[in-house]
């Protein structure tokens, strides 16, 4: 039976790429975004319009995926937002918005998907961290802190879900050309990339490679880890 993957934040960027990636690997793929999917839905892909920070929407979506596609075996918590600003110029509402999507959203989808995985006694969860956390990036206090929370959530969830044969890990991409970083000045981006061991932008394939490793059935002894890309 084909495996079922749920990917959040699929409208564009990394999430959109992950939809195609998992379809090519013959997964049954479901995903969500706050807005309608960009363009035509790829054959075999089921899209939900849902905000991951909305508990009711997440509960309804996850259970509908189970009913329509089968038990979710892989969850990729990709949905995330960022905001670059100096601490002194950051409104509280911005930080609340970032935490709602990045932390509360990751928590909610993980909780609901893990209920299904616990019953099936198998699951792979991959959350999205960021190099912004270990690099302590100036101008990204809220974003870096939210991703630090995701890492902590990942480690604790790994322990709590291990008895159900569910692994929980995170991937921390270095900058990759998506909308999330479009507003970042080139000079800032160059300085950031210079702090990596391998001094280039990440590509989508770098991210899917790490995810493939973490969701592989053979990776059943790998949990609670965050894989940073680019040598951070």
């Amino acid at each position, binding site marked *: 039976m084909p495996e079922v993957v749920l990917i959040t934040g699929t409208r564009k960027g990394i999430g959109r790429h992950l939809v195609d990636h998992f379809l090519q690997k013959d997964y049954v793929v479901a995903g969500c975004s706050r807005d309608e999917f960009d363009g035509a839905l790829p054959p075999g892909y089921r899209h939900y319009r849902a905000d991951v920070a909305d508990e009711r929407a997440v509960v309804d979506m996850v*259970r509908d995926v189970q009913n329509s596609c089968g038990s979710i075996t892989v969850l990729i918590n990709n949905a995330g937002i960022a905001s670059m600003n100096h601490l002194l110029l950051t409104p509280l509402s911005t930080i609340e918005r970032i935490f709602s999507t990045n932390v509360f959203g990751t928590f909610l989808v993980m909780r609901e998907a893990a209920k*299904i995985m616990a*019953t099936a006694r198998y699951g792979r969860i991959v959350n999205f961290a960021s190099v912004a956390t270990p690099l302590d990036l100036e101008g990204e206090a809220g974003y870096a802190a939210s991703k630090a929370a995701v890492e902590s959530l990942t480690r604790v969830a790994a322990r709590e879900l291990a008895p159900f044969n569910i692994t929980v890990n995170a991937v921390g991409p270095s900058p990759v050309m998506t909308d999330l970083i479009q507003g970042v000045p080139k000079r800032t981006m160059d300085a950031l990339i210079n702090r990596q061991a391998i001094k280039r932008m990440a590509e989508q394939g770098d991210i899917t490679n790490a995810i493939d490793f973490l969701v592989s059935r053979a990776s059943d002894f790998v949990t609670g880890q965050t894989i940073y890309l680019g040598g951070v």
Partner: protein
Amino acid sequence: MDKEQVLRLVLSTVREEADEIGYDELRAPTAETPLFGGDAGVDSLSLVRLVAAVERAAQVQFGKNVVLADEKAMSMRNSPFRTAGALAELLFARLGAVDA
């Protein structure tokens, strides 16, 4: 949907899960069967599984998506997870609060 139906659903789910979670005393549950807390009942991991199974069963039977471990349930003076009957009471209340 009445309370009796909801209790029956909870009891049958507990019965089905008994083997999986390894508790013989749950094979013939009644409303008074202890589930969690005190000296009797299941461990916390088994409770997690039971709650997930009951939520799923409620969805299949009544077509409603409920979350049992909500803030209200977790702050009740008497745990709604203490017996199968208490869990059924909680489920009945949540089913009434959710639109299909």
